[in-house]
């Protein structure tokens, strides 16, 4: 999935790095210092609907063109995450204990059209 450029209208991944210092949470989140809060945005015209990402295989590209030439009943296709990974966090809980846990599906790695 391409990272969104200002002029990219199509479905892409918007990258944002969030530093816990910026949230004022560095006193209780010990590691990491921040994380990638990415999210998906952009248009999904009908011929891209159902494609796993812009870098789709040739087959799905042709399949999408066929779909475009035989428009199905209009349904909105949205730009959604297609691959995510966990984030390991070390933090202090309310009793002052040090807790290490892996939060699943925390970082969006790829986007595609639903």
């Amino acid at each position: 999935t391409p990272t969104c450029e200002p002029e990219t209208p199509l479905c892409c991944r918007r990258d944002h790095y969030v530093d816990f210092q910026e949230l004022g949470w560095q006193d209780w989140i010990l590691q990491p210092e921040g994380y990638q809060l990415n999210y998906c945005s952009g248009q999904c015209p009908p011929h891209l609907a159902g494609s796993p990402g812009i870098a789709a295989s040739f087959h799905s590209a042709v399949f999408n063109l066929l779909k475009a030439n035989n428009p199905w009943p209009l349904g909105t296709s949205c730009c959604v995450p297609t691959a995510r990974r966990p984030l390991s966090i070390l933090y202090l809980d309310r009793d002052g204990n040090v807790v290490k846990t892996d939060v699943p599906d925390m970082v969006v790695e790829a986007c595609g059209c639903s």
Partner: protein
Amino acid sequence: QGAGAVCPSCGGPTLAPQAERALVLELAKQQILDGLHLTSRPRIIHPLPQAALTRALRRLQPGSMAPVNGEEIISFAANTESSTATCSSMLTFHLSTPQFHHLYYARLWLHVRPTLPGTLYVRIFHWGPRRKRQGSRTLLAEHQMTTPGWHALALPSSGLRGEESGVLKLQLDCRPLEGNNSAARPPRRLLNTTGDQRPFLELKIQPNEPGAGRTRRR
């Protein structure tokens, strides 16, 4: 979302950079609290000494993945009632272990002072409240230590059920194993129970398997 506004994921208008950044920071806070199953950020009332924290971080093998949906916890002894004897103490830990979680690994870390005269024999009891005034105690483990420094004493995870109040009390009962000349010398502090080298628990928990309770009942 005003009327007619379309979700940005479906091709709606993009936000102005400042508005987008403010939205992202709010999203980040919500996403982290949800991921840690917290309703609000914890208030750190008693910050830990940096040295104790550094040691704890070293224990939590950086890079090793916590068990799936599980947690690794380091809990420092909150306050220690030390008897005047060599090293018998009552250690108190505050553990708000989430319900429906299964504790499967427990180590008690103790720091033995360099003044150790020989072998130190330690028994560790779980101190549970009983309806009557005095508590009841259950032997968890016994260990012998012959060198000063840090020692990780394995504990049976089944014996460490935290009380409803989230407070866990462990009683250390220890004495030096040495010749009969020990009677001559006054008892000395043999264990560090406060400050940077206070005892701490290293625990690993993971969610109960679905239906585990039923299996036990059956």
